[in-house]
């Protein structure tokens, strides 16, 4: 601290209140205190260059966070006391929450664990403190989500065992492997993955338009926790951008490493968000904006501005960004088609869009929906109405990296499924795309370890060999109650009762039978 005998400005004062509490150790070697800082090859020459992304002392943190929590829990109480679930647009909407609680909330918890860890690993105290605050914030999010969904769980099916499912259910290995991947990496990659690529570049797509959608569908509890969580997110995003700039400024050798991480984590995040795309386009009865529109605003526009800003460090936009931009017109439809077919193995219901929703999809996706998807959907709808609801009983081929079934199509040919495979040490591995295949090639020893749900079922590690046993015994999903077609489901019938409508008489032959 160069300036003496002069009142400290905000920035210097904050430094005294955080990083200045640290000291140069002499009794133990720095390398032993911070053993994980070097192995990724990132070179940090001077931690004092770290710019604190925000200057929040603990007392202010407690004060502001307590204020947020007070507001939030007042709304949860009011929501439960007034049976707020009765005021949502339509019970189909709740299925998005089921996906959220099983797919997203456990990631918040994993983020807590990851940030607590890196909050200890860096030798720069400023960075540690910022990470620790994010750790406790992420714990907050995981817990407020349990509380927000608690009331829904009392009135709808499929929300009853989220963490158990997250560890086991086939499609939940998509989000789980994403976070396992980040947490098993070194501290700098973790921050590039989660703080930068995920929080800064991609989470807006989940939390902003989707939560706005929750509001539009009358879900007071969710929009409140979502936006309340996002108010922490603004701090996390600032950390994400600061981390990247700091690493890049420290040493030019860091640039290619960071670029590879950005490429990897952009692609993994983009794949993960396919699930959000389908939530927005198919699971929100009242629609705010299409997935493609959200992608344009929050990735193409905002991400574009960001990567332009990073050019000066020698960073280019993520590899395969063009493939992702093109896919914005396809992924939600492809994902929904898949979940529709495999509804016997999910914890939520699926359905075919109603006519006005089909019309909305045609309008929002003029280039793709009618041309590639409408026919298939109309056919399935007809089959369902004729009592032949379609379920696919063949277990799908999963991508070795993102773990999504290989359902996506080629950029230049939407009628052609995208599939890549390579041989590694005598074994054949399958991928959904060049993006995922590249990730594997960079770290094969990591991705050969993947716990692929379909393989695991075949190997007999999931308490049964047939889907029905695996789903009920291993996943804790009640067949026909938690899943299958929405129309005629217990959730649907209960909803009709709430709305004072007579439950539909079940049509002949429309038994909910997965076989």
């Amino acid at each position, binding site marked *: 601290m160069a300036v003496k005998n002069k009142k400290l400005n*905000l920035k210097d004062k904050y430094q005294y209140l955080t990083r200045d509490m640290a000291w140069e150790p002499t009794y133990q070697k720095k390398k032993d205190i911070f053993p994980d800082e070097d192995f990724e090859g990132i070179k940090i020459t001077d931690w004092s260059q770290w710019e604190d992304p925000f200057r929040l002392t603990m007392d*202010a943190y407690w004060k502001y966070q307590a204020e947020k929590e007070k507001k939030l829990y007042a709304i949860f109480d009011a929501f439960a006391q007034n049976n707020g679930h009765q005021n949502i647009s339509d019970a189909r909407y709740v299925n998005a929450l089921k996906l959220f609680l099983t797919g997203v909330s456990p990631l918040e918890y994993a983020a807590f664990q990851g940030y607590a860890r890196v909050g200890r690993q860096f030798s720069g105290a400023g960075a540690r403190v910022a990470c620790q605050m994010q750790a406790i914030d992420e714990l907050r999010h995981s817990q407020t989500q349990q509380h927000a969904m608690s009331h829904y769980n009392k009135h709808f099916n499929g929300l009853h065992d989220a963490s158990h499912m997250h560890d086991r259910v086939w499609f939940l290995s998509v989000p789980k492997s994403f976070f396992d991947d980040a947490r098993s990496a070194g501290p700098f990659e973790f921050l590039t993955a989660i703080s930068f690529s995920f929080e800064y570049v991609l989470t807006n797509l989940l939390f902003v338009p989707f939560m706005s959608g929750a509001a539009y569908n009358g879900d007071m509890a969710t929009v409140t926790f979502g936006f309340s969580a996002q108010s922490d997110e*603004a701090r996390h995003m600032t950390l994400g951008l600061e981390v990247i700039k700091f690493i890049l400024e420290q040493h030019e050798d860091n640039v290619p490493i960071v670029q590879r991480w950005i490429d990897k984590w952009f692609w993994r995040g983009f794949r993960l968000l396919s699930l959000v795309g389908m939530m927005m386009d198919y699971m929100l009865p009242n629609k705010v904006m299409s997935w493609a529109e959200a992608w344009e605003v929050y990735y193409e526009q905002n991400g*574009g501005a960001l990567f*332009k800003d990073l050019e000066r460090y020698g960073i280019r936009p993520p590899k395969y960004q063009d493939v992702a931009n093109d896919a914005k017109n396809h992924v939600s439809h492809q994902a929904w088609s898949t979940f529709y077919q495999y509804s016997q193995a999910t914890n939520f219901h699926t359905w075919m869009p109603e006519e006005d929703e089909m019309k909305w999809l045609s309008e929002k996706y003029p280039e793709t929906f009618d041309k590639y998807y409408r026919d298939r959907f109309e056919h399935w709808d007809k089959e369902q109405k004729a009592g032949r609801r379609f379920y696919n009983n063949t277990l799908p081929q999963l991508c070795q990296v993102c773990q999504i079934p290989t359902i996506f199509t080629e950029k230049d040919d939407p009628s052609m499924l995208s599939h890549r495979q390579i041989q590694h040490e005598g074994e054949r591995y399958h991928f959904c795309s060049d993006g995922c295949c590249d990730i594997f090639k960079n770290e094969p020893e990591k991705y050969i370890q993947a716990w692929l749900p379909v393989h695991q079922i075949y190997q007999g590690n999931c308490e049964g060999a047939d889907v029905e046993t695996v789903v009920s015994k291993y996943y804790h999903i009640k067949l026909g109650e938690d899943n299958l077609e929405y129309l005629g489901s217990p959730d649907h019938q209960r909803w009709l009762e709430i709305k004072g409508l007579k439950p539909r008489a079940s049509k002949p032959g429309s038994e909910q039978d997965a076989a």
Partner: protein
Amino acid sequence: MSQLVFIAFQDNDNARYLVEAIQEDNPEAEVQHQPAMIRIQAEKRLVINRETMEEKLGRDWDVQEMLIDVISIGGNVDEDDDHFILQWN
């Protein structure tokens, strides 16, 4: 290529003052009302001044108070006692 910075607030009473203050200090900014939220974007730079906020509110205002109502931001952050600035270089 255009380089937009943005900030989004929960649509509540605090936000109304923030939006007013932002509009006054950033006449070029575009304000978008979406369900439950207000999003404001501007080319390259957006500033929130403590002084303007204090005028609007008629009381002392700490820049960090804003953290309660922000949903998201895009742009590099420059924050001190007197302002909160978002910008692209």
